[in-house]
């Protein structure tokens, strides 16, 4: 089980990010799909067991899911009101989930969430925003007021 270095503070933007990558946010789904059994066989800085009780694995407040994999990303509410993310990277199901989100650590999900938050923030401030992708694959937002 892997932790994702992300904090979702806006579920609407999380939904936008998931949709952009071909997935969906399912609100109030209290369990997420994973291997289903904690084997305690993975040591890594990313391992969720470093900061979560294995008894909580598979439990969450909301879920992000994608087609072609049964595994899902669980969003877990933190004390500050934000949501952190956890998922099972094990096996073909886990790898497919990672591929949908840009690889290990789900970088594309993080980038799309940052883009959604940026666009929302800029729109509230009266900016018109255009989105492109540069040659290196970075999301480029150009905002004009």
């Amino acid at each position, binding site marked *: 089980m892997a932790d994702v*270095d*992300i*904090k979702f*503070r806006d579920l609407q*933007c999380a939904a936008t990010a998931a949709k952009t990558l071909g997935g969906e946010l399912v609100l109030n789904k209290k369990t997420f799909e994973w291997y289903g059994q904690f084997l305690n066989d993975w040591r890594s800085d990313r391992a969720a067991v470093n900061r979560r009780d294995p008894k909580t694995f598979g439990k969450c407040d909301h879920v992000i899911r994608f087609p072609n994999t049964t595994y899902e990303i669980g969003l877990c509410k933190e004390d500050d009101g934000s949501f952190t993310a956890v998922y099972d990277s094990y096996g073909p199901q886990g790898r497919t989930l990672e591929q949908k989100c840009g690889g290990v*650590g789900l*970088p594309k999900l*993080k*980038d799309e*969430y*940052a*883009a*959604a*938050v*940026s666009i929302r*923030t*800029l729109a509230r*401030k009266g*900016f018109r925003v255009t989105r492109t992708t*540069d*040659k*290196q*694959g*970075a*999301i*480029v*937002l*150009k*905002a*004009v*007021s």
Partner: protein
Amino acid sequence: MATLTITIKNGEAVVTADGSKLSCDTAHDVEKAIGKTTKSLPTGTKVPAQTVTQK
């Protein structure tokens, strides 16, 4: 007219405006950087193309 550019890749974002660049690790930081940047943007500011960060 004010122009602002945000470049996002691999979990990092760079907010560029008026020749200044702010690097951010999280979406919340980006939000704060946009607020900080737009507050200081004078009317008529246009960002020169060379200040756009290509990560």
